[in-house]
């Protein structure tokens, strides 16, 4: 994954640390060392802590995978948080109220995400609207759709009867399956879904022609066009995949909460971007990778968990996270001169 081109072959260790991957890895190690020291009276050494840290990071991680595709191509996708809310609401509606099977709900969620991503992709690639603006519009639009679909209320297992009283229906099997733990309760299903999503994104970026096109477009769009790269299709595809990842994330979110909240996912897009950037992927496009994003996901995920087991209040957690993101990005920048 390291695309660093240093001629200094003297110290392999120094060289490894100087590469973006090395730096991202170092940041993760630092955060983990922090956990060893401030271990919250031993909470850090419990299996459950790690399971929860990974579970909590998984939804963000799914968004970050799609975000990496878009950012490497030189764009940005601000709509993922809202698309997450839209699919959360829709999947709750389909699974809880309409009793659809998982074999229908999952493809439906993917299609909703792909639809949203496709629209923002076409608006930026075809109509040449800046990605920031195009996906900002989709962010607002998808949030509106989520509220429209749900009537502005959480779509939950509580159903209103004709006389105004509530009755509760069962949590659908799909949601239970997603919210499950396996391997003796040590790994959350959501984490496995993230790992699967990561594998898909890695395969596309590192092993598929299309991934190479994304790097090329992010590096130099005009040169790519003149080299026969299908710029329009490749760029639109990145947004479609980002939307699909947001769709899966929305389903996971709904399953964990056992409801579809139209307000869910607000601000998640920024966390996802932070994860990508902390990994060392350049916001200018063309450089970086999905492996780096995994490091970024783990770094932010663990940082948040360690702060919370040390009972740092949310206000302090947010402020510290902000500082650490800037610090991480500054060290990344020094790696390229």
């Amino acid at each position, binding site marked *: 994954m390291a695309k660093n081109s240093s001629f200094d072959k003297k110290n392999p260790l120094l060289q490894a640390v100087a590469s973006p991957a090395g730096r991202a890895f170092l940041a993760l190690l630092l955060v983990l060392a922090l956990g060893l020291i401030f271990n919250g009276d031993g909470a850090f050494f419990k299996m459950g802590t790690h399971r929860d840290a990974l579970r909590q990071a998984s939804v963000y991680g799914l968004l970050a995978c799609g975000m990496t595709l878009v950012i490497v191509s030189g764009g940005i996708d601000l709509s993922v948080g809202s698309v997450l809310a839209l699919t959360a609401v829709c999947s709750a509606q389909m699974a809880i109220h309409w009793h659809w099977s998982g074999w229908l709900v999952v493809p439906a969620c993917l299609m909703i995400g792909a639809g949203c991503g496709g629209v923002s992709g076409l608006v930026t690639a075809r109509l040449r609207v800046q990605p920031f603006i195009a996906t900002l519009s989709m962010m607002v639009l998808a949030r509106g759709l989520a509220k429209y679909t749900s009537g502005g209320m959480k779509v939950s297992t509580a159903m209103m009867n004709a006389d105004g009283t509530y009755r509760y229906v069962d949590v659908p099997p799909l949601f239970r399956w997603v919210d499950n733990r396996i391997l003796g309760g040590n790994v959350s299903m959501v984490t496995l879904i993230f790992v699967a999503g990561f594998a898909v994104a890695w395969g596309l970026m590192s092993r598929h022609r299309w991934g190479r096109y994304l790097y090329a477009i992010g590096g*130099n769009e005009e040169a790519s066009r*003149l080299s026969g790269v299908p710029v329009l299709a490749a760029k639109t595809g990145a947004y479609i995949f980002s939307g699909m990842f947001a769709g899966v994330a929305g389903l996971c979110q709904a399953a964990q909460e056992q409801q579809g909240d139209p307000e869910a996912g607000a601000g998640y897009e920024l966390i996802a971007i932070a994860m990508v950037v902390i990994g060392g992927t350049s916001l200018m496009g063309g450089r970086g990778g999905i492996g780096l994003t995994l490091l970024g996901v783990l770094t932010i995920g663990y940082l948040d968990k360690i702060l919370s087991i040390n009972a740092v209040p949310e206000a302090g957690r947010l402020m510290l996270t902000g500082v650490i993101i800037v610090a991480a990005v500054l060290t990344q920048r020094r790696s390229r001169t």
Partner: protein
Amino acid sequence: MSPGGNFTPLVCLSHITKRFGGAAVLQNVQFEVRSGEVHVLAGENGAGKSTLIKILAGVHTDFEGRIEIDGKAVRPQTPLEAKALGVAVIHQELSLVSSMSVADNLFLGRQLTRCGLVQDARQQQEAALWIQRLGLDIDVRKLVEQFPIAVQQLIEIAKALSQNARVIVMDEPTSALNAPEVGRLFALIQSLKVQGCGIVYISHKMEEIERIADRITVLRDGQWIGTAPAGELPMAKLIRWMVGRELNGQSLRHQPPLGEERLRVENFSVFPAGKSKQPAVRNISLSVRAGEILGIGGLQGSGASELFLGLFGGCGSAALGKVRLDGQEIDFASPRQAIATGVALLTNDRKATGLILSLSIAANATLADLRGLSPAGWRRPARERAATEKMAGLLHLRAASLDLEAGALSGGNQQKLALAKWLQIRPKLLLLDEPTRGVDIGAKREIYQLMNEWTAQGIAIMLITSEMPELLMLSDRIIVLHRGAMSAEFSRAQATPEAVLATAMGLNSCQPGAGFQN
């Protein structure tokens, strides 16, 4: 008209030598500008004209030699200092902020203020005065972008004058102007002369030089060739001064036996997107045969690069005309189609449009042929590697590792990498735009050799190069473009540097190959 009796020149540059790396681009050059004269600086591309101007304008500061302004030795260290000394350069790309008003542009960086607040009314009054002095009648409160390029240029001149410029350097000022606008500019130049300004005028157009020059200085290959009053330098002599050099290395081209007609183009025009309504390429008809190198001669603005881009599908529907490749009619909507058909375009700026500098050598070399190398969509790194290694070997591309970023390579190796990318698609027709630009002499020879090999394999090559010796040496046939239209065609035997240059400058009188058809 004649330079006044004042013989202390406004500006005098003497013994100017400037090196880039090891190569001297200017050697012991002298140049002076007197008050009230238009001094034309002439020379081929790469003769050192712009380097000299940049030294005067304070852009290049590490040079040997002496600059005197009003008899006093000076050494401007920044463009700002040069401006303060009274030297203003009007570049081809204007330096106005197009989204600001005319008045704001005139006072940009030195606003008239009171207590930190800009005094708009006063600025507008003074700006209007300067604009009137140029004989312009425009509202200075309007935004610069609302005016045509010609007016913007005059605004730029007004800005220079308002900053007390006395030496005004105009670098190809008429490239974007039509005939009446040129007339207006020339009238303005006359009035500037009367006001005592000295004008340095750089142009590739003979008719303009004839019309406007008081004195002419010719540079060639960084050397000062001579300075003479315009009346003593007829066009034929001027061209001889500009070209006059021995052509060596004639033997570097080995022409293979010609094959079938590969490309035929009839009435091809390209209309660039943007404001200019003039086509960049007008009604060009030509043909190239397999194994042939067709050289395209022309100076800046000739439309040669646009012709290539149009043939390559890079202009989409803005390119009109009939094009046949191997007898098949083609109409490329995108470079993608052109590549699939076997047409390759090496662009003239490898950093901006040729390579993806952030990608590895292997990724760059295989980018254009990625469909062929990964037919099922999934990439095959081993195959890409093998292909890259083969190309690197063929082109003598030297790199520590194929995983190195393209941006880390030297200029010559970058150019070879760009060529490798196009060779990888096994082209039938190679469009080479400045294949040896910014490449050292060793790599140049290697590229010449490669062009011989490719034509021997039956590839047809169209070549643009701004270096006259290279054009004459490599081309089996030359067509010359002037302002988007074909002005002459030469066989190898007919082509002389004087004739090619004269037709490229729009002079039709000495056109030996007129009507020559292959």
